């Protein structure tokens, strides 16, 4: 059955970390060969299948950061350590780390958009000397929806991290406002800067426009798209935009290519 790409394989849950009431990270046993920014088709038999970003990976394990938003994810939230999640993949092009070498790297992520770039951030924290500058702008709806609080504290040691929420509370001492507000305040060397933007479509668009305004070349801005998908292998047609299939040609596109995609 090796030529049947629709078959999923069970992966055992080895750890579950709860971030918020509706966001959890599931660490699974896996020997998959992965790249940052790739995704898996995740399923529970009888409850459906969905594309989920790999939020981090290492030797013998991978992580999925999942928001409880539907039938499948509600079922996944009932699982415990030792239970199994079905998976097939990995799919998508992912980020090419070698293209980011020596750059002043800016990563802008909104909400669950942090998942596809988390492993990339971890990579550059470990390999900090392979890039020259490292700025991270993270946006969440409110203080309660902040993901990866512990990891973010650690990233502060390697990068300039700006954590902002759209709506603060009286106890919130951090930044408030959309990520775009902070992009506008950047002082950067346009020629050396490379940027990655992941999040809701409107955040991606405005952030990219903001960076272009600061002089960052369109081909130095990488975006990761999210679309409905069934197959993950260029057959079902749900994720097609223009003449591109997000599942096989993306999900990562440079901004100069992405902005040409008419939908």
């Amino acid at each position, binding site marked *: *059955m090796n030529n049947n*790409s629709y078959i999923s394989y069970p992966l055992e849950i080895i750890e579950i970390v709860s971030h918020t009431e509706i966001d959890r990270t599931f660490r699974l046993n896996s020997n998959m060969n992965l790249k940052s920014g790739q995704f898996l088709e995740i399923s529970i*038999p009888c409850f*459906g*299948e969905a594309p989920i970003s790999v939020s981090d990976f290492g030797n013998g394990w991978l992580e999925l950061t999942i928001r409880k938003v539907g039938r499948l994810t509600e079922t996944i939230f009932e699982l415990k350590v030792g239970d199994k999640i079905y998976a097939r993949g990995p799919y998508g092009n992912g980020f090419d780390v070698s293209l980011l070498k020596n750059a002043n790297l800016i990563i802008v992520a909104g909400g669950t958009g942090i998942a596809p770039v988390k492993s990339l951030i971890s990579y550059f924290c470990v390999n900090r000397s392979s890039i020259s500058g490292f700025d991270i702008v993270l946006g969440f709806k409110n203080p309660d929806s902040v993901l990866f609080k512990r990891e973010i504290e650690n990233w502060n040691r390697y990068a300039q991290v700006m954590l902002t929420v759209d709506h603060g509370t009286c106890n919130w001492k951090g930044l408030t406002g959309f990520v775009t507000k902070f992009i506008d305040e950047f002082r950067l060397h346009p020629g050396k800067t490379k940027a990655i933007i992941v999040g809701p479509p409107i955040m991606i668009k405005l952030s990219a426009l903001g960076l272009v305004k600061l002089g960052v070349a369109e081909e130095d801005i990488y975006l990761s798209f999210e679309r409905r998908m069934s197959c993950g292998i260029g057959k079902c*047609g749900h994720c097609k935009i223009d003449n591109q299939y997000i599942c096989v040609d993306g999900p990562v596109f440079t901004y100069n290519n992405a902005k040409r995609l008419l939908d």
Partner: protein
Amino acid sequence: MGIKLTYAAFDKALKRLAEKYLVIGPVRQAGKGTYSDTDLIGYGEISSADALVLSQKSNFSPKEYIFPLRETLFNFNDNQLSVPQNDIREVIIFLRPCDINGIKRLDTIFLSNGGTEDFYYKRIRQKVKFFMIECREGFDSCFCVSMDSNKTDNYSCAFRFNEKEILVDVRDAAFKDAFGNGQEMPFQPEFVEENHIKVEMPPLKSLSDKGIFENPVWQEYTSRCIACGRCNVSCITCSCFTMYDVKSEECANSGCRIRVWASCHIDGFTDMAGGHSFRKKKGERMRFKTMHKINDFHRRFGFHMCVGCGRCDDVCPEYISFSKCISKLNDIIAKDIDE
């Protein structure tokens, strides 16, 4: 190799072929038409020349025999996955050149796009043989000549159904003895050279213009289209599907994962978990489909997806015409160039 057959000899040959093959062709389904007391022409099993409907275009394409409307990918039983056996026989399909060319589009998506072969499509497709029905005149809504899909030599046998006899061109050695002792005579099928409807295809680059995307021409489709998806279902080249899990009602831990045809016109096609969706207006969906059929696919694979069979025009309850849509776009672009 050309053979002349009597109708009786043809029927005899079909009977012999039916021992090995599932033989299907356009057939009349009495009373199943759109209006009361009308018939539907769909694809079904045939055992004689009488059953073949040649005087009308089929409302549905033979697509469902290669890419079933609903297909089980695997069954679950206590979390054990099992792929259903494919026990279908080899298939012979009687079809016209446009549909043979349409299946080439399905092959392109299922067997090559993304670099992966679709397991389920391939296991049926490799059992399919084409018996081409010669098509020299087409029907009222056809525009295959404009789409360059009126001709093909991709068939095992081709047939001309004359009043008294049938002429066969056998290209596939597997069928060289299939027609018994018919009389040998030269025969090459002919193809439609001109349709009633002609469309000028707009140049590819011109369709990718933002001005075309934002043109008010799409607004009419927003008010007219009712998102029923009949155009997609009748289309030989629409290949989209959605996968679902179905839980067995009798047994708690069993069920199956299926795929079902999907339509880019119908609500929900782009819905994502969390509530975000794209192309909410019907006109945007018409634009998406149009671009796929006459622009995006060509830019990816080098030929148009639409084959000009005109079935979408035939079935639309709102009288939306795809050939008119192409012509309108061409006029807009020609006018822009003139100005």
